[in-house]
């Protein structure tokens, strides 16, 4: 019988066009194809290709995964305010909220890491569309669920021709930004139980 709950759940959410699904697919590929773990990546979306609410989920486990969607995320990456508000209550008590500080100004829990992914992508990388990869770098830095080498491999396998350097740069910019956070200094729970 499979082990109980070594599943690690990551939820990416934001607006259509922000690369939410691409980031999740790269993470899933790194964990599944290169780190040899079991992964399940799913998404929910509306009729819009651009602008609608978009959510993508990744479950990573050492054993076979039954339920393909997340039950309660260990990490929630919110790339806009409305998604942050909508999904943060779902987080595991000891989960972690990661937000794009460029887009999310009202942060609903102190157990959060707020990095201006879009601003970094725009100013440091010169391509705002790379915000998803900056965010992916930060998320992986914070959760350490896949090796950096394999993440790079997966990223390069998916990157369009001629964009390898920009993508790697974005990934590492995100990782660097996240390194400045010491998770031990954050509150240990997303929300305190009532006294």
């Amino acid at each position, binding site marked *: 019988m*499979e082990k*109980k709950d070594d599943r690690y759940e990551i939820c990416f959410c934001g607006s259509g066009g922000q690369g939410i699904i691409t980031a999740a697919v790269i993470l*899933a590929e790194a964990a*599944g194809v290169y780190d040899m773990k*079991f992964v399940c*990546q*799913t998404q*929910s979306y509306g009729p819009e290709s651009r602008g609608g609410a978009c959510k993508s989920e990744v479950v990573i486990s050492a054993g076979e995964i039954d*339920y393909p969607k997340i039950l309660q995320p260990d990490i929630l990456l919110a790339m806009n305010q409305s998604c942050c508000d909508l999904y943060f209550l779902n987080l595991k008590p000891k989960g972690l909220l990661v937000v794009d500080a460029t887009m999310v100004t009202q942060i609903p829990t102190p157990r959060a890491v707020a990095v201006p992914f879009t601003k970094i992508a725009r100013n440091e990388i010169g391509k705002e569309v790379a915000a998803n990869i900056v965010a992916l770098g930060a998320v992986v830095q914070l959760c350490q669920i896949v090796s950096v080498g394999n993440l790079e491999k997966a990223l390069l396998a998916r990157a369009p021709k001629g964009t390898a350097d920009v993508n790697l740069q974005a990934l590492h910019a995100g990782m660097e930004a996240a390194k400045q956070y010491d998770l031990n200094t954050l509150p240990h729970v997303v929300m305190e139980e009532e006294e």
Partner: protein
Amino acid sequence: MSAFGSDKKRVLLQGNEAIVEGAIAAGCRFFAGYPITPASEISERMSRRLPQLDGTFIQMEDEIAGMGAVIGASLAGVKSMTATSGPGFSLMQENLGFACMAEVPCVVVNVMRGGPSTGLPTNPSQGDVMQARWGTHGDHPVIVLAVSTVLDCFQITVEAFNMSEKYRVPVVILSDEIVAHTREVVTLPSVGEFEAYNRVSPKMPPEWYIPYADNSMGVPPMAAFGEGYHHHVTGLMHDVRGFPTQRPDEIEALVGRLFRKITQGFHEIQKVETFMMDDAEVAVIAYGSVSRSARRAVLDARRQGLKAGLLKLITLFPFPRHSVEEALQKCRVALVPEMNMGQISREVKRVNQTVSIVKKYNRVDGQLITPQEIYQQLIKI
């Protein structure tokens, strides 16, 4: 050029993409379809993959034409398939019936979305189970298989082609939006690892060929157009030579054989998986993406001391009655969770004959039934 190159490859694929790779592994070289959410990725990958293998992809003017072209290609000797979702599946029904009647092997994938009508294009459902079985008019045999994982999408598609070729019957694969868009890692097989079954061709000279003659399996050899047999294929009731008939004895023999070939192959066609059923007192009977939630719910229930088990149906039709009967005899209660108002639960009740209690749990709001919901139902029992 081989289908996959020489080495086994671990790849991250969507369910829809895995169906394409399964089809190719089974020898499919023709696809005709029409774009529809959430099945479009099948068309997209086919349009890229098939020409690499000297196959053919064509996007037709509608699903009716897609189904027609698929049957035409199969009659010309090429394994063929199409893929669609609810509304398109409805449009295919008439020609699907032609494939049943004229015994043309082909595979139809229906990635189920919420219905009726345009319904919920981007959300899952299991509402087309009975349409898959009885969608076309008239009494007809058909095989319906359900997939629940990306690996299933690959393997069951191979199975679907094999069954279709072996029994000369259209095979419907029921997927759903969740399975279709879930990405998981699968290892693509090297060439020849999967056994691909090919239809039996006639060996006799053309003047001895009787296209619809009965034999021990009930499946006559099938000539392709252009092989010198110049036979007639029709959607009308036909005699053993394939020509229209209104003679009751010939009609009865034909319809009888169409059903008999499936009943004779029943044990080979019937595919189920069991999980913790050996000592189970409560059975969950599920299929498609819901069976994944059910598996987790069973584990959760076991942890609470409830002896639950899962019977996952892969073959939905012909209904795997023996496996279901066995589960019903063993367990005092069977729970059938479905993303419809209760389609397979009716079938379970039909074979139950009051041995056990059959409960259903239904969700039709476009959301996958969660493990918690099934668990809650289980502990209530």
